[in-house]
């Protein structure tokens, strides 16, 4: 079960490969798809290994990717909190 996930803004990516290279869990690879500028953005090839450490987000010079934890309350959606707030 993945502890984290990544979010990718495909159109900002310039395919430098930093995120792919430095992901400690080797979650990412550059995809064969193009964005509108002709770059190959990354995608998660082994998403189950993602720890949400956000090292990809620290490296990405184009602010195109970031990682986040999915096993922490902080990462859960606003809608989940609504029932509690309504009490």
């Amino acid at each position, binding site marked *: 079960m993945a502890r984290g996930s990544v979010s990718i803004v495909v159109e900002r990516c310039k*395919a430098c490969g930093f995120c792919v290279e430095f992901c400690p869990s080797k979650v990412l690879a550059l995809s064969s798809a193009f964005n509108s500028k002709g770059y190959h953005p990354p995608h998660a090839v082994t998403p189950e290994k993602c720890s949400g450490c956000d090292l990809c*987000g620290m490296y990405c*010079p*184009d602010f195109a990717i*970031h990682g986040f934890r999915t096993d922490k309350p902080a990462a859960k959606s606003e809608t989940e909190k609504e029932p509690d707030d309504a009490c």
Partner: protein
Amino acid sequence: MSSPIVSITAPANPVEDFLRTDRMPHIWCPGCGIGTTVNCFTRALLESNTDLNKLSIVSGIGCTGRVAGYTNLDSFHTTHGRAIPFATGLKLASPDMTVVVYSGDGDLFAIGGNHLIHAARRNIDLKVICVNNLTYAMTGGQTGPATPLDVITATAPYGTYDPAFNLPYLVEAAGAVFVARWTTFHVKQLARSMAEMFKKKGFCFIEVVSPCPTLYQRRNKMGDGLDTMKFYKEMSKTKHGAPTNEVGLTKSGEIIVGKFVDRERPDFATMMNAHLQHELGDQYIQAEGPVCG
């Protein structure tokens, strides 16, 4: 409606709050490291709980000079080499403001070199982040004050033969109280160093060695941005407290990184206020910030 809705949505990238997102995408080339330093900068601001309404960022001219324009902070893109004297005026007029100078090696050490050494001498409370890509990138990759020996540049087609500044050595000699160097490979260390710097009073300086694949690495057949990042990973050696005279950069040699200097010395405003208070007593009225109109 009794069962909780467990839908996981991505929280925003922490950098987003610090960006003028309406100006994205930025102008930096693929594999350029400046954006990486901005990530570290924003993580450091979050970590150090810096009040963003009391933070200004001042840049000079060049690729790194564009950082000011992309950050959603009070931001000043000044003239070539003059970020530090602008920041000096801003800091003295607004003493409770954290003033960050974010600029490049050419801007800070060549055209702006005089201002840099004097601000360090006076120990003006500025946080200087110097992205060192070893060249004048915005103008096409000419020789700069930090370009190592024996590299090809647009104005040294047969290779450079004038020695480069060793930036940490220079700023330490000039009086900086905090001096560190990292590369864009060292994102965690860089973010921590920046956070530490934001809490330190006085003239602080962080050099970030960063790839310029388009204009520096390409001309010297050193590969792309990623190759350069791998080079940093392989060749960097962390030596906190290393004597700065031993940390000069060469074309393909070891890169000494770490926190080299962390010392105490009263900053300019502290010296000024204490001295004038001592000399003038009750007659001294300390400037307390914005006063016009």
